[in-house]
């Protein structure tokens, strides 16, 4: 059972620690997405697993083999690179075949696997073309094919879709998910696109600055972000995060924003009993707000603020209200958005049990 685990990994480039004591383990057949902003160490982590760079310290296990000092070709992995990295002078067939050159297979087996991958990825008519004669999506599929022919138990993807247009990206996303369902390899998939992460992953590891901020299912990461970074990073439009204080009154707990609004927090599952007056950050997802100027049963709080502008993104629309020195974003029905005028005062309600609370000092979830 190939279970991939990183144990106390340290990677430094000339004294600068890019990764510092990182621990992570991926179960068999899991689709793990490494999600994080540019430069946070995702590619570094993947290259360490592939053996393309050496760890400074720590241990990498695949199954129960310690692969830390193994050559890349002996690790039993296949990788799809950020830039495809096809061999420019080889035909598509040649590219796929070269993927098997370390395996020392009999010729019929090589041909069989190449044909299998070509069929699976629907690149059969392209087999004799050079990479330069292919479109972006076709190159992408060849790159995936070159990884698949190896029948590796662990597949690594490094932002494979980042340069494709939106339509092709959706298509390829579905294709990769289909391949995962069909072949069920363990996948480590790097991206900084949160839609990819939310749709494909069985689990997401959110990284920032070389540190794993949260490791959980897409739902967990979205619904219960572990800290302020995850809360702000996951979700588009982003969660509204505002400073406030805990206020206790009439036996209930509430949050008071620095701008004066109150929000009831009776339904919040505090990990520790809240302290009166403790500084907190309150996070409100835009899509949880009720419709503008409409009543909401059992609302936790209500905001009456002037509208700055509305923004239409296809099937959704977002209204932005002036709130102190910042903005409050809330989802609106596209039909309603057209009726709202900038400058109007809008009243939106936030329901109970949906707020996220973080410690203002540490940024950790309360």
């Amino acid at each position, binding site marked *: 059972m190939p279970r991939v685990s990183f144990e106390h990994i340290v990677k430094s480039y000339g004294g600068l620690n890019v990764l510092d004591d990182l621990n992570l383990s991926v179960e068999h057949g899991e689709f793990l997405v490494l999600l994080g902003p540019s430069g946070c160490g995702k590619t570094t982590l993947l290259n360490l697993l592939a053996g393309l760079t050496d760890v400074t310290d720590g241990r990498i296990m695949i199954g129960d083999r310690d692969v830390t000092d193994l050559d*890349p070709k002996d690790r039993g992995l296949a990788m799809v690179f950020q830039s495809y990295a096809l*061999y*420019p*002078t080889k035909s598509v067939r040649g590219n796929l075949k*070269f993927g098997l*050159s370390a395996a020392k297979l009999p010729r019929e087996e090589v041909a069989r696997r190449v044909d299998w991958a070509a069929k699976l990825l629907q690149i059969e008519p392209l087999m004799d073309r050079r990479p*330069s004669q292919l479109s972006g999506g076709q190159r992408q599929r060849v790159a995936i094919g070159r990884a698949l022919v190896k029948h590796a138990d662990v597949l690594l993807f490094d932002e494979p879709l980042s340069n494709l247009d939106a339509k092709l990206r959706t298509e390829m996303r579905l294709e990769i998910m289909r391949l995962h369902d069909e072949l069920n390899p363990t996948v480590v998939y790097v991206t900084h696109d949160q839609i990819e992460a939310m749709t494909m992953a069985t689990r997401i590891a959110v990284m920032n600055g070389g540190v794993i901020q949260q490791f959980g299912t897409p739902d967990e990461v979205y619904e219960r972000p572990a800290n302020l970074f995850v809360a702000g990073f996951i979700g588009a439009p982003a969660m509204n995060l505002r400073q406030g204080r805990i206020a206790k009154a009439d036996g209930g707990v509430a949050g008071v924003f620095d701008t004066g609004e109150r929000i009831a927090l009776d339904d919040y599952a505090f990990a520790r009993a809240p302290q009166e007056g403790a500084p907190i950050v309150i996070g409100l997802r835009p899509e949880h707000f009720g419709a503008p100027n409409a009543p909401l049963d059992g609302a936790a709080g209500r905001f009456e603020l002037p509208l700055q502008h509305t923004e239409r993104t296809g099937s959704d629309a977002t209204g932005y209200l002036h709130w102190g020195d910042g903005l409050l974003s809330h989802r609106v029905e596209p039909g309603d958005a057209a009726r709202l005028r900038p400058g109007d005062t809008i009243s939106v309600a936030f329901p109970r049990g949906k707020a996220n609370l973080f410690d203002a000092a540490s940024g950790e979830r309360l």
Partner: protein
Amino acid sequence: MTQLDVTEAAAGATVIRGRARARRRRGLTGRSIAVLVFLTMCALFFCVPLYVVLTTSLKTMEEIRQGQIFALPETWTFEAWNFAWNEACSGITCEGLKVGFWNSVRILVPSLILSISLAMVTGYALALWEVRWAGTFLFLLFLCAFVPLQIIMFPLIAITRTMGVYGTIMGVAVVHSVMAMPVLTLIFRNFYKDIPREIMNAAIMDSGSFWKIFVEIILPMSGNILIVVLILQITNVWNDYLVGVTFGGFNTQPMTVNLANMVTVSTGTATYNVDMAAALLTAIPPLVIYFMVGKFFVAGITAGAIKG
């Protein structure tokens, strides 16, 4: 500029067509004319002597004695060419330049193979694999590239003598290869350094074999740099005199040495037509190679390999 202003005021398709015309017209005026004049002068500077050499080689000696060096030959004859190739004396042998020509070819081929293959593999290793002390080694190569032959002449003679190749074709070839190694290695290394790292990473994961990656992936991508290096090295070796005259044996001297002997040591009156023909014969082979090899240049070696 007025042209541009006018076209900018115009609308739609006229703008585009107008701009294209403006650009083309600007391409033919002003600065470019100065450049053309300059280039023509340069060309003349080279063409006039060439013209004289060429016409002289096609004249008879009687015509040459009339002293009109810019006149076209009255009777065109390849007699001097034939004589220079087959019969002219160089030292005591009178078998023409063809001896030197074949010696040069026999020096050229092994020295090309030796220097290019060694430099290529070394450059590949330095650029794409983790080699211990690679930085130091590169710095040494860089220094070596500036060492003139004259400084290491005596040690080289001693070394080739110990190897038993002094005074042979192989000796000349080996010295040429050694002298070319630093520069060629640096050229190959810099070329391979630009191969996208991920292609190499993919190959390392796919195969991991130094030689297999070299032969199957890197070598097929090396066409253009090979052409550059071939031209450089063929010119170097073919036009060399010093190495040939020092390390070549009595009957194994290259064409340049052969030519020099022929022109300087000829007894009696100077046969200018033969000398000119011999000089041209010696100069032609690299030219032929430029034209042949230049055709193989291809654009974009990594086309399609990476996105964007």
